């Protein structure tokens, strides 16, 4: 979404305009839901987090800083909500058993579906900090600068954290036999 268009919609959201709010929901519902799903590995939890995140967005939209892009702000709220959700469930109700939970996801064939489930399950084994940078990089297509804005990290830290996340992911994928050692 173009920045001017975005600012104009935010301004109307701040004035309580329902159509503008719906526009914002329509624009970001899908990427936020997908980011939440990749963080949590479960469709129902991702839907809950998406819903809560949008409500927080509109509760706090009056304090939105127009110097930033709105998606950075929305993703930050959604990721924080996802991480809170993970912490609330820990340690008795582990997330990430996505091997048996992806029935709603469209796949061309069983083998591909199994592979995708394995990859998602491996993602769930990463530390939340690492998973967050992977999710932002791959599922929201954010740059280092944008990831830094969202996670309140310097770009240098984003770079090294992505590197560490990939290293860990590589090791885990090798252990699961998805990637050759």
């Amino acid at each position: 979404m173009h920045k001017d268009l975005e600012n104009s919609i935010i301004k109307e959201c701040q004035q309580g305009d329902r159509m503008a709010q719906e526009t914002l929901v329509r624009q970001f519902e899908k990427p936020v839901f997908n980011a939440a799903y990749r963080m949590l590995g479960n469709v129902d939890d991702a839907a809950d987090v998406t819903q809560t995140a949008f409500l927080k967005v509109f509760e706090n939209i009056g304090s939105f800083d127009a110097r930033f892009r709105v998606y950075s702000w929305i993703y930050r709220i959604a990721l924080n909500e996802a991480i809170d959700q993970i912490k609330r469930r820990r340690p008795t109700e582990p997330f990430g058993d996505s091997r048996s939970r992806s029935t709603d996801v469209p796949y061309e064939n069983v083998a591909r579906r199994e592979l995708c489930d394995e990859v998602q399950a491996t993602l769930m084994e990463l530390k939340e900090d690492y998973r967050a940078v992977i999710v932002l990089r791959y599922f929201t297509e954010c740059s280092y600068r944008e990831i830094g804005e969202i996670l309140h990290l310097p770009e240098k830290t984003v770079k090294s954290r992505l590197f560490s996340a990939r290293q860990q992911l590589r090791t885990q994928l090798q252990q699961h036999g998805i990637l050759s050692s």
Partner: protein
Amino acid sequence: MSNERVQELISATADRELDPEERVELDQLLQDSPEARQFQSDLAEIDTLLRELPVLEPPRSLRTQITDRLESVPQSSSRSILTWLWQPNFGAVLRYGAAATFGLLLGVAVYEGQLLDTTTTDITDLVGTMTSDSLRPPTDIIDSYSIRSRGFESLARIAHRDDILLLHVQINAEDSVELVVNFAPAGLRLDAISQSRDALESIEYVGDTLRVQASGHNRFSVLLRRDDDATLTDEAKIEFNFSVDGRFLQRQALHTTW
């Protein structure tokens, strides 16, 4: 140079976040290190695995659940001023009547505009003000559309109360888009138009046709009446034609009932 530094450079390459100097440095290191090449190959494979994960459609009920719950979210009390643009050929009584009806209809508000005697069809000259709350669509919506394509989206809702129809249109467009709506085939005539201030590039009502040129985020509302001369069935169709630089973009229709 440490192995970790090489791998960090490879990781940054995968993100296309390497500066030219680092690129040259990495190319040299890759030539000299089979391990680094293996790491690069693994990262490329991981990249593919992650990018091939499917994009999920959110549950259908999610958007409704969010928007329903928005009703309970505290709203700011600030209001924006909206500009009223009046169709010029109606008499004062009708205009005041429409304003009063619209005010009652929407539980509003203030019309601070003045009646104008102009016969011009450039309705952008005709200005009044209303509060933004007044232009929210009422709840008894008859029909709506929502269209979206690259760099463009539009939503519209039509609602009726008694003998007046209220059409509420929103256009979000990165490039300038033209919307043409002809109300005559639906047996309707335009009573009044309102738009957000400084929003639309141009708006004209010529003959029975409304032409709107818009880019950015725009909203406008139209009051419509049943044309006295028209033979109406219980249903009527209003067509919306969108184009960019004369090229057809989208067509949508709303159906009304009386």
